[in-house]
C-alpha cells in the first residue's frame, strides 16, 4: 500500500494535475450551486474537456474534483436558499436552511465545509483499505460471474429506487440495455437496429445520452417553472466560527456518518442521496431528548450528518467502479464512460495494469478535499453571488453547454438533433416520475453485459454456465431477490410512496 501511495503521489502531485484538482473543485462548486444542475449534468458537460486532455490520470482527477465540488456546491444553495442543487443535498436543507434563517448562515456553511471535508477524507482512507482487497477477490471472477454481477448491480439500482418505483426503474434499465444494443455489436460486426442509418452505425453516443437525460430536462424544468430556481438575496454572511462545544458535539456524528455513508456508497444504486437521508434519520434517532427536538429547526448535528454522509458516499461509490468496473450510481456511470473513452478499463486489472491511475485518484481525493476546504471557507460570501445571475442568461448558457458537449464528442450536427429528441423523451419520462439514472446505467453496462454473457455462452456452449458455476447462480438468485423483495414488501405494506427516486 505504501508503494502505491508513493506512486500515486508522484503521479498526482504534478503542477498540471494540481491545477486540474483546483479547477475541478472550483467548476464543480460553482455549477453545483445552480439549482437543478447535479454532479451528473456537470460531469457530463465536462467530459469533452476531460477527453480533450488525453491523459486518463489528469482527466479522472479533474472529473472527481468536479464531483466533490458539485456535492459541496449543492449544499451551499441548500443552506442559503433552501434550493438543493443536487438530490444528495436535500437532507442538508432540513437543518441548514433554518440555521441560515436564524442568521447563522456563515456557521452553517462552515459546518457543511468541515463535515464534507471529514466525510470525504475518511472515505478516501476507507477506499484505500478496501479497494485493493476487493479487487484481488474480483480477479477470481470469470465472464459468467461478471455477467451475474452486472445483473446484480442493475437490479440493485432498481431495488433502491424507492417504494413503488421498482418496476419503473426496471423498465428504464431495460430501455437503457436496449439502446445499448443499437449499432455494431461486439460479438459480431453486424449492425443491429440501425434502420440503415449511417449515424447509428456506432451506436448512440453516451455523452449525448447523458446530456439528454439529465441536463436538458433539468433546464427545461427551470424554464417551465421559475419557482424551481427561486433566487433570494444571499444576505450578509457573518459569524463563521464554531465553538469548542459545538465541535465536540458534532465530532461523533461525523465519525459515525463517514463510515456509514461510505458503505452505503459502496452498494450499487444507493449513492449519496440515500446515504444522506439515512444518515439524517439515524442521527435523529440516536439523539436524545432536547437535541432530538432540535432536528429540523436548525440542529448542527442534523446538518453535519447528511453533509458527512453524502461526501463519504461519493467516495464509496468509487469502490465498485474502480475494482469491478461496475458503476453504482449515475455519476460513476458517466465517469466509467469517460474512462472507457480514454482507453482505461476500470476493473480488477486496473490495479495491476495501471496502478498509477488508481492511486493518483486516491491521492487527488485527499488533495481535492483539502482544496475544497481551503478554497471555499474564505470564498463562501462571494460564491453565493453566482445565485443572483438572472435566469434569462443562465438557461440559454446551460442549453448551449449541453449542445456543445454532445457536438464536440462527435463533430456532427445530426448528434444535436438526436440530443434534442432524447431530451424531449427524457422530459416526458420525468413528468411521469420515471427515474432516468437506471436508463443511463443500463445503457453503459449493456455492452459489457452482453460481451460477458456472450463469452460465457461460448465457453459453456449454451446456458449451462448458469448452473455449472455456483457463484453465478448465487449472484443471479441474489439479483432476483433484490428485485422481488421490495415489490413484495411494497405489496404487503402498500404504504405511502417515498419521493427519493432521483439518482445522484
Amino acid at each position, binding site marked *: 500500500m505504501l508503494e502505491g501511495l508513493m506512486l500515486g503521489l508522484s503521479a498526482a502531485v504534478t503542477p498540471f494535475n494540481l491545477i486540474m484538482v483546483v479547477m475541478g473543485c472550483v467548476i464543480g462548486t460553482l455549477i453545483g450551486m445552480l439549482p437543478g444542475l447535479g454532479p451528473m449534468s456537470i460531469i457530463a458537460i465536462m467530459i469533452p474537456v476531460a477527453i480533450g486532455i488525453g491523459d486518463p490520470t489528469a482527466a479522472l482527477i479533474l472529473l472527481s474534483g468536479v464531483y466533490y465540488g458539485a456535492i459541496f456546491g449543492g449544499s451551499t444553495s441548500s443552506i442559503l436558499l433552501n434550493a438543493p442543487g443536487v438530490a444528495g443535498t436535500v437532507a442538508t436543507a432540513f437543518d441548514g436552511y433554518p440555521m441560515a434563517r436564524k442568521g447563522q448562515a456563515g456557521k452553517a456553511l462552515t459546518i457543511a465545509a468541515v463535515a464534507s471535508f471529514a466525510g470525504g477524507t475518511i472515505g478516501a482512507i476507507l477506499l484505500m483499505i478496501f479497494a485493493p482487497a476487493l479487487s484481488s477477490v474480483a480477479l477470481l471472477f470469470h465472464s459468467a460471474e461478471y455477467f451475474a454481477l452486472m445483473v446484480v448491480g442493475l437490479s440493485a439500482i432498481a431495488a433502491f429506487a424507492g417504494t413503488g418505483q421498482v418496476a419503473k426503474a426496471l423498465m428504464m434499465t431495460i430501455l437503457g440495455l436496449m439502446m445499448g444494443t443499437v449499432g455494431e455489436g461486439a460479438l459480431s460486426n453486424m449492425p443491429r437496429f440501425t434502420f440503415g442509418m449511417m449515424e447509428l452505425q456506432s451506436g448512440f453516443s453516451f455523452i449525448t445520452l447523458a446530456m439528454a437525460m439529465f441536463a436538458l430536462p433539468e433546464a427545461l424544468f427551470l424554464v417551465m417553472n421559475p419557482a424551481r430556481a427561486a433566487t433570494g438575496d444571499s444576505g450578509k454572511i457573518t459569524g463563521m466560527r464554531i465553538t469548542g462545544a459545538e465541535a465536540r458535539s458534532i465530532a461523533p456524528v461525523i465519525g459515525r456518518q463517514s463510515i456509514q455513508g461510505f458503505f452505503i456508497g459502496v452498494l450499487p444504486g444507493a449513492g449519496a442521496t440515500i446515504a444522506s437521508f439515512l444518515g439524517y434519520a439515524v442521527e435523529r434517532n440516536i439523539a436524545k431528548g432536547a437535541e432530538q427536538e432540535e432536528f429540523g429547526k436548525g440542529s448542527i448535528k442534523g446538518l453535519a450528518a447528511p453533509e458527512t454522509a453524502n461526501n463519504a458516499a461519493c467516495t464509496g461509490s468509487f469502490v465498485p467502479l474502480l475494482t469491478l468496473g461496475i458503476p453504482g450510481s449515475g455519476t460513476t456511470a458517466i465517469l466509467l464512460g469517460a474512462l472507457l473513452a480514454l482507453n482505461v478499463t476500470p476493473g480488477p486489472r486496473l490495479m495491476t495494469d495501471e496502478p498509477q491511475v488508481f492511486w493518483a485518484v486516491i491521492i487527488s481525493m485527499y488533495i481535492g478535499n483539502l482544496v475544497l476546504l481551503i478554497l471555499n471557507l474564505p470564498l463562501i460570501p462571494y460564491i453565493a453571488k453566482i445565485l443572483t445571475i438572472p435566469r434569462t442568461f443562465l438557461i440559454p448558457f446551460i442549453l448551449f453547454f449541453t449542445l456543445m458537449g454532445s457536438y464536440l464528442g462527435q463533430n456532427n*450536427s445530426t448528434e444535436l438533433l438526436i440530443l434534442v429528441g432524447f431530451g424531449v423523451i427524457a422530459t*416526458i419520462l420525468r413528468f411521469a416520475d420515471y427515474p432516468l439514472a437506471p436508463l443511463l446505467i443500463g445503457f453503459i453496462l449493456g455492452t459489457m453485459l452482453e460481451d460477458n454473457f456472450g463469452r460465457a455462452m461460448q465457453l459453456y456452449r449454451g446456458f449451462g454456465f448458469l448452473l455449472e458455476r455456483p457463484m453465478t447462480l448465487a449472484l443471479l438468485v441474489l439479483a432476483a431477490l433484490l428485485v422481488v423483495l421490495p415489490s413484495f414488501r411494497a405489496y404487503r405494506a402498500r404504504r405511502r410512496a417515498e419521493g427519493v427516486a432521483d439518482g445522484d
Partner: protein
Amino acid sequence: MALDRWIALAFIALCCVYGYAAFFTMDDLLPPILQRNPVWPSTFPKILTVMGIVVGLIVLFTPKPSGDKAEIKDGTIDLSRLGDYHVGQAIGLLVLMVAYALTLRPFGFLGATIGFLVFGATLLGERRFHVLIPVAVIAAGSIWYLVQEVLGIFLRPWPGFLM
C-alpha cells in the same frame, strides 16, 4: 389513464417492434458459419424483448398506491396544471436548439452561437440588449478559442462561404 401508464404502453409497443426485428429479421443476415455459435447477435435482444414486455405489463397493471398525490414537492411540475407553466418558452427553446443544429454548419460556430444565446435570452424575457449582445459575443468567442486553440478540436468559426 395516467401519463406513466401511457409511457408503459408505448414502451411495450417499442418492445414489440424491437422484438420483431430481433426474432424475425436479424437472423436472416447471419452467415451460416456463425449459426453454429451458441450465441447469436440476436440472442441478447430476444431476452431483452421478453423481459421488457413483462416489466412493461407489470407497470401498466400495477394499481397506484393510495395517497400518493398528497405531497407535491416544491419546484416539481404538477401535470394537472400544465397550462400554468411556461410551456411555450420551453418549446421555443427546443425549436431554437434544432435551429442551432441546422445552422451550425452554414452560419459557422460564432454566428450560430451568438444567435442562439441572444434569441434564447430574448425568448425568456431579457430585453437589455446592450448587456446581452456583448455577453453573447464574448462567451461565443472565448469558448471558440478554448475549443479550437486549447483543446485542438476544429470548429469552423465563420460561415461556409467565407472560408
